[in-house]
């Protein structure tokens, strides 16, 4: 398949992702922040599609945008928005945040200026038609152990939630 208007879509999607990211931290209303985060996640899914990784894009939409964020919204909506909007923001992490942002920006600029030698000459073109199968082979072949450990971690989280929610089991 020949890609169409690649540059345009790249700038559109990354612009949307940035816009969403900025809105997440500037909105006072928590629901608006959550919705802006969903916009960012969807734009990222589009970028994954452009990188010929359709499976990752699909999982991004199902898990993050369709699953996790819905639960987020679910919780946020039960909080009284009027009250929380008037409250003073008590986490004053601006100094640490500024240092982290400067450090990350410095890394990006360094990579942009001097990194040409470290990167491959051409973008890697993976076979798009077998993306899902390749990921399955990786997860259930090479990285089987790590994958199972990760799922065990989720199981621990589920058991913890049940124990905390139910006083008597």
């Amino acid at each position, binding site marked *: *398949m*020949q890609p*169409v208007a690649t540059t345009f879509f790249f700038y559109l999607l990354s612009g949307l992702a940035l816009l969403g990211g900025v809105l997440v931290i500037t909105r006072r*209303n928590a*629901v*608006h922040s959550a*919705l802006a985060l*969903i916009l960012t996640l969807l734009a990222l899914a589009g970028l994954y599609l452009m990188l010929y990784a*359709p*499976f990752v*894009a*699909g*999982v991004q*939409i*199902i898990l993050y*945008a*369709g*699953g996790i*964020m*819905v*639960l987020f*919204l*679910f919780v946020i*909506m039960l909080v009284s928005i009027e009250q929380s909007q008037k409250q003073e923001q008590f986490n004053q992490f601006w100094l640490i945040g500024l240092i982290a942002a400067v450090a990350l920006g410095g890394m990006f600029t360094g990579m942009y200026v001097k990194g040409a030698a470290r990167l491959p000459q051409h973008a890697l073109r993976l076979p*798009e*038609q*077998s*993306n*899902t*199968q390749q990921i399955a082979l990786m997860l259930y072949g090479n990285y089987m152990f790590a994958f199972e450990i990760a799922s065990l971690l989720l199981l621990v989280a589920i058991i913890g939630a049940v124990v905390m929610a139910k006083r008597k089991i």
Partner: protein
Amino acid sequence: MLDYITSYLTSNVTPGQAGNVLWAFIYILLIFLGLSVAVIAMNWLERKVLAHMQVRLGPMRVGPHGLLQPIADAIKLLIKEDIMPAEADKVVFWAAPLLVVITAFTVFIVVPFGPTHAVTDMNIGILFMLGVSSLSVLGVVMAGWASNSHYPLMGALRSSAQMVSYEIAMGLAVVSAILMTSLGQASTGTLSMIGIVEAQQAQQTWFLFKFFPLGLIACFVFAVAMVAETNRAPFDLPEAESELTAGFHTEYSGFRWSLFFLAEYSAMIAVSSIAVTLWLGGWLRPFPTWLSGDTWDLVFSLFPGFTFLMLAAVTFFNTARMPRHPYFRIQTLGLAGFGALLAVIGIVLFIPPVRDRIQDIFWFSAKVAAFMYLYIWYRGTFPRYRFDQLMKVGWKVLLPIALGVLILTAVVGVF
């Protein structure tokens, strides 16, 4: 230009694979038009069939047998005042119906109406459909919250709880069907919608009858979960009239409300077409191996034309039964004209090139239509579940069944 069009008509790939933007655009327009017509038809059909199930007549006033009722309703909704509650969250209230409609229509770009009749064939087709349609929960939650009112918020909470719970059973049922695609000669499974139907063609069976009764049970689980997923009776708790007036869209009116309506029906068509693709062989005609050969191919390719001719015959029969009063002259003429239109479509469908090109679309639509009829039938038959019963059915009945079917399918597939 003409050459360009005719050259495409004989090609064997979808516009997305060919990278043909123009044809992809035309397909998108055609699907949009077809869906709108289907929603209008479904609206009329639901009211009529439901009415006849309850020994009523249903809409009879606007046009012969109420045929123009959906159009009258649409005009009414469009010119109705669009009210936005004063305390509502403006942006979210505005975005919610748009999001619901966009997700409901976007999924159709991977629906395979035929081997070449899809906008594109994605490697992750079924995953894309499930993912994008799961986004519609967001729209429902947004609508309920932004209305800033109690009934919509309750409706939205119920609806999101219900949709999130039933998605799990639905997903497991889908996985067991995808496992079946990995059997047979082509030993790698696929998530692509066209690939799934081609796997059924290669294995010479619909997945409904594969590993009897495993495929049947998986299809049943999906069929129940999809009714819950689209918030239809008997799982229409989010919009239970007796408790929540209209659920999450109580505060919506006019055009915005009609967007929710449109999205609900096109979501129903979308999940039905997932079921048809996964278990009922998609565009494949019935009995492709048992009744094979050129003669049977010809017989089955005449079905679309005969269906339309039969509809035309029914229409003419009812034209003859119209009351012979001057008041009814225009209605009688209109019904006769509608019958003539159906007959012309039927005759066009007999032309050999059209016939060959159209029959896969016909079989796909016919199977989807059967599911759509089931939706009406459920609504006329089953009483509404209580919310705790709904959760019990989702988590304690459907989920274990789907999980069991998945494990058994894997075991039977390996040995």
